[in-house]
């Protein structure tokens, strides 16, 4: 086990290096730079651009830049931001501000997905080929077919604008305040603000988990040991919850990997639609402002999270199902 973990981590290192190198080089090879546009299409004098390039070391050969950047990344320093509105601020600060907010939304959405998805999937499998099953399957297919780009605005139109039940605008800066004041998590201010984005991000996850739970449980219920359990006269409830579900949920754990990727994709869209000051929004902003350091920094954070998540899922898999061995 330990050996396997070490090997996986060792394999992840060149992958990460490749990602950093690719991002770093491609974004610098892109015509135009972070200091080109002064806003409203006005041009910045070339002397100013040159000065800024020199100040931030962008006039160096690209390999020199890369090596010095890699050196600072190894010390967990992602360098200064180059975007117009955040020029000179440490990228670390920007990430430290945004990441916890994004994590809150992501974690809540994943929890929402499991809490609704597993019971729905179990219900569908128990009532296989009945109206309940068809209903759950339909919800699952619709959930996977409608992107958060559609669900997000739709939820706002219905619950915020139409019914006026929930707020959309974070007037008091509640998202950011949770970083210093965790007590806010239990206030209506926070909950009412979080319901819509978490719902929009979570519906797709509910759908995926429902489908997987249903398929997995149906398969397990056909196993011989379930027939044995029934044959020795166990109650149906015991057969399903004790004997079937435990085994059926093992494959469901693997969906955590894709879910992490979903959280990532979702954060780009959801955070912009709902004006959440998270890291996805920062990434999108850094793309348009050509903020090299922020862009590469956020890409590294995303990649580390995804790779770590995938390794974690595999490790969890061996722990849940002792028959599986990675050696």
């Amino acid at each position: 086990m330990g050996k396997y973990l070490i090997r996986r981590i060792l394999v992840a290192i060149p992958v990460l290096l490749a990602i950093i190198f690719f991002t770093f080089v491609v974004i610098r090879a892109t015509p135009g730079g972070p200091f080109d546009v002064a806003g409203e299409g006005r041009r910045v004098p070339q002397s100013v651009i040159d000065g800024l390039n020199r100040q931030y070391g962008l006039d160096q050969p690209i390999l020199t830049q890369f090596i010095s950047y890699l050196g600072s990344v190894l010390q967990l320093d992602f360098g200064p931001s180059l975007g117009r509105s955040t020029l000179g601020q440490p990228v670390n600060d920007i990430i430290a501000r945004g990441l916890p907010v994004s994590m809150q939304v992501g974690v809540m959405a994943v929890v929402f997905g499991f809490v609704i998805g597993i019971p729905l999937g179990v219900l569908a499998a128990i009532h296989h080929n009945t109206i309940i099953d068809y209903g759950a399957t339909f919800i699952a297919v619709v959930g996977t077919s409608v992107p958060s780009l559609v669900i997000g605005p739709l939820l706002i139109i219905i619950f915020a604008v139409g019914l006026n039940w929930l707020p959309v605008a974070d007037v008091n800066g509640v998202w950011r305040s949770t970083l210093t004041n965790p007590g806010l998590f239990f206030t209506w201010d926070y909950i009412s603000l979080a319901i819509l984005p978490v719902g929009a991000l979570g519906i797709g996850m509910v759908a995926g988990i429902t489908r997987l739970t249903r398929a997995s449980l149906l398969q397990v219920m056909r196993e011989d040991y379930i027939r044995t359990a029934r044959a020795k006269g166990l109650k149906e409830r015991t057969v399903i919850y004790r004997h079937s579900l435990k085994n059926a949920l093992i494959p469901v754990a693997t969906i955590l990997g894709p879910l992490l990727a979903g959280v990532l994709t979702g954060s780009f869209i959801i955070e912009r639609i709902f004006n959440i000051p998270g890291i996805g929004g920062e990434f999108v902003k850094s793309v348009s402002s050509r903020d090299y350091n922020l862009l590469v920094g956020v890409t590294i954070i995303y990649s580390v999270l995804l790779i770590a998540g995938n390794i974690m899922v595999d490790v969890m898999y061996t722990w849940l199902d002792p028959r599986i061995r990675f050696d």
Partner: protein
Amino acid sequence: MAVSDSAKPLVLAEEEHYPSRSLFQDSMRRLFRNRAAVVSIVIIGFLAVLALTADILQGAGVIDNYATQHRGSSLAEPLTCAVDGDKDGDGVPDPVQFCFLFGADRLGRDLFSRVVYGARVSLLVAVVGATISLSIGTVYGVVSGFYGGKIDNGMMRLVDFLYGIPMLPLIIIMQVYFRGLREHADQVGGLGLTMVRIDQSMGGLFFLFIALGLLNWIGMARMARGQVLSYKQKEFVEAARSIGAGDRRIIFTHLLPNIIGPLIVAEALAIPGYIFTEAMLSFLGLGVNPPTPSWGALITNAIDEGAIKFRTHLLLIPAFALSVTTLAFNFFGDGLRDALDPRMAGE
């Protein structure tokens, strides 16, 4: 010894009663018995016809050019007509030129026409994305699985390596690069310029295809390899080899027909992903070039123009089109899977 010859005609007679059906015909029958799949095929077919005939429809005056801006019709309500006013300045209002079924956007462009043209982008993305990843993935996986040994080892190392890379941030960065090329076309030469030209002539779709094609072939390659590995040990391959069939014949006539089914199903189920990715890239301003409409771009425009509060139809109509299409592809993929592998039906 007299051999009973009455058995033979009996078999022949039975064959006459039951005309043989190929496996393919069998699957098609199963597919067309699946109501959801049939409805999906009809929807996709309808959209495809709409997308293919968009230019003809426009020539016939049924829909408008997607880029035509009607002055004075900014944010026109649905079921109103363009009032372009008095262009020739003779004091008499010009005759009505165009009526908006779904209304117009802020620039006075007909929403219906833009949604129809948007179908083009989404379907093209679906077809081209699927074709690229299916062909690269299949070729890669078959070569790797069939030849095995060192080739397989090397090729799969690369796939494993790429598999660990989160593709989405990289696609975004590549799109930034392509966008940079496009915006500074004067500074690029050679191959870059050729690519920018191709991309411009396609309304920004070319770079989108490259990015999307790179997204999914890795999973396909793994799947194709797995399939080849399981089939190449089977007796029918051995039999073919024993009568002198070459590698090429074995791959194309014995292996491919067996492995292609699951690959096509996986690809059909991946199509909504391509459509989502296009919509997301358009949302981030990295999709098609304006004024080319795509459903993602239309939704984004609507959000930017405040359609969440007012004139929600600007947002809901393209959103509906997008969702119905991905829904149709999902049901179609499910139906295809059940049809090609009846053991999986209902799971």
